């Protein structure tokens, strides 16, 4: 979960990492009021959950009251890589002497935490790594290993930082490390970490990405309004609805409704449909052990989607049991009804019970099942995918 810059800077302040100060504005009037504190010599920074804001024109400087008003008005109407700008961070302009990079992340391949520092700040660090690898310094840590001041001194020395700034830079790195471990971060990045003309260091930018799965350990964050959020641009109406129902769902541009079980086969099944000449209308993931109600909702999303011409259904019961799956499908058929053709394969844990439930319901109300072609383990899943493509093309 990515934090907004102003949120990240709040956490920085909590861990004694110097920040420029500044205020969040929600409209041009608030921007002007905030800028007054700094004599209108400010930088206006769009708060969006994407990188490359500067290049996309989301960060501007101003030197007068009119400037602040006009620029903030322009920024508030802007979209940056699909994200609307709803908040600006108004900060005083800094008198910068030099720019550094300091970051911390997890190396999943080595199961280590790694602190990364460079004297090339304010630019894309991946480019520095590619073009000037000798300007990048790493220090690895095992999880829960303490950091010492001398670790910070060593990094500072490599960056060419000398006394009297040595100790200050060192605290920067140790505080960053403490913040990283305390908040279960995946990434904390200061780019640039600036050295001011009057001497001190400051975090001019701040980027923090936290682990969603560890938020239960940090109830204090929710109190500050830092909660789980959607980070990938704007949602379609159906994606919004799915999200309210807690179903991972993406709209795609094809016509085959994908009702595939877990994420693993959701991803692979999408490929299969393409291999057989079709195009999926969506990606969807039932999650582990979905309830019958959830299964029914997944089908509602597909049946109500006008782009969907046929539905590809696959359930290989593991943690998700076939009996629950069958109950969900039957619930959907009874309460909503299926208006599209669906080819469905069901096998795995509790498949006998699932089949029994289907047969029972079908005997009672055969008309509800008229659009379903049902298969078990005897039919390879590839045949089901091919059939879904045929159905979408109108073949009986």
């Amino acid at each position, binding site marked *: 979960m990515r934090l907004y810059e102003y949120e990240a800077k709040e956490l920085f302040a909590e861990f004694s990492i110097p920040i420029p100060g500044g205020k969040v504005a929600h409209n041009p009037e608030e921007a002007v009021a905030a800028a007054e504190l700094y004599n209108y010599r400010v930088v206006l920074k769009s708060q969006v959950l994407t990188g490359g804001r500067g290049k996309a024109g989301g960060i501007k400087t101003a030197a007068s009251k009119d400037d602040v008003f006009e620029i903030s008005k322009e920024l508030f109407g802007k979209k940056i890589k699909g994200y609307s700008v709803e908040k600006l961070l108004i900060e005083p302009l800094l008198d910068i002497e030099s720019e550094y990079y300091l970051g911390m992340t997890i190396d999943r391949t080595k199961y280590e935490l790694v602190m990364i520092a460079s004297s090339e700040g304010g630019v894309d660090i991946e480019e520095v790594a590619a073009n000037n690898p000798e300007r990048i310094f790493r220090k690895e840590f095992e999880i829960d290993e303490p950091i010492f001041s001398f670790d910070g001194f060593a990094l500072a020395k490599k960056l060419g930082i000398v006394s009297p700034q040595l100790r200050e830079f060192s605290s920067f790195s140790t505080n960053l490390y403490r913040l990283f471990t305390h908040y279960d971060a995946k990434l904390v990045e200061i780019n640039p970490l600036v050295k001011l003309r009057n001497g001190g260091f400051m975090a001019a930018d701040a980027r923090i990405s936290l682990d969603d799965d560890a938020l239960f350990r940090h109830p204090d964050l929710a109190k500050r309004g830092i909660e789980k959020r959607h980070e990938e641009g704007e949602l379609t109406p159906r994606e919004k609805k799915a999200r309210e129902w807690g179903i991972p769902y993406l709209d795609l541009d094809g016509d085959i409704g994908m009702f595939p079980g877990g994420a*693993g086969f959701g*991803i692979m099944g999408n490929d299969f449909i393409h291999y057989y000449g079709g195009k999926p209308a969506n990606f969807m993931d039932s999650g582990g052990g979905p309830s019958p109600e959830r299964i029914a909702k997944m089908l509602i999303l597909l049946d109500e989607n006008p782009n969907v011409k046929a539905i590809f259904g696959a359930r290989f019961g*593991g943690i998700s049991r076939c009996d629950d799956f069958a109950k969900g499908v039957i619930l959907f058929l009874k309460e909503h009804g299926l208006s599209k053709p669906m080819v469905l394969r069901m096998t795995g844990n509790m498949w006998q019970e699932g089949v029994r439930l289907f047969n029972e319901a079908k005997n009672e109300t055969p008309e509800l099942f008229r659009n379903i072609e049902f298969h078990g383990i005897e039919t390879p899943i590839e045949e089901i995918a091919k059939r879904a493509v045929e159905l979408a093309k109108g073949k009986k």
Partner: protein
Amino acid sequence: MAILVDKDSKVIVQGITGGAGSFHTKRMIEYGTNIVGGISPGKGGQSVEGKPVFDTCAEAVEKTGADTSVIFLSAKFVKEAAIEAIRAGIKFVVVVPEHIPIHDMLRIRKEAVKYGARVLGGNTPGIMTPGEANLGIMPDIAFTPGRVGTLSRSGSITYYIADTLTRTGYGETTCVGLGGDPVLGSTFAEILQLFEDDEKTKAVVMTGEIGGVYEEMAAEQITMMSTPVIAMIGGVYAPPGKRMGHAGAIVEGTMGTAESKLKVLGAAGAHIAKTFLDIPKILSELKV
């Protein structure tokens, strides 16, 4: 022969008194898995499916000689449970729950390395040695004893591959679920080496998906193997910048695309399958 588990593995279930824990304990026992007990702090002395429940792993190890554990607990309790098992002397821990905090997985991995234990997951369907042991949530209908090993990030993919190998008469030695979480207890490379050392395993099918770097890390291992490896990667048609279900399943820039993974694995000597039905074709060409 098999890898990691067989009929002699002495297995405890952590979280045996919970809903999923008791349901799957019953299934695992019915399959013939040697379940020797379970853990549920505060419920020591009870029994589930005829197996004794202990308060701590140390007691279970002392009384039953347990060497393997399957965890069915919610994510926030997994760190404690896994580390407890490892420190009690359990050598193989299977973490079924999903959404384990990343820092916790690093802690678990650190303990595992220190104590010489191996961890699978989180978010693994478990591990199955057909005819001998079924640890986790895998549906036995898909599996039959045979000569191909499988490893995958995803549960359903594991079942589809086994289903295909079963239907075409190859069968499986052991099927390993690595897990769908972003940081995993074991890597493809580590498990591939176990298959390489297993005499009965004549070929390995590994499947991965977009996102992360675990698949790429397997490449070096594949170049050193004499056992043929068939690789399959899901997400060739995944839209970039969109997360597909699993926490790690996202293509960012050129990182973690199916194309890059397939290219690296192919260059390392893996045989690439596009669909499950390609797998028996390749096995037949390889004369496995």
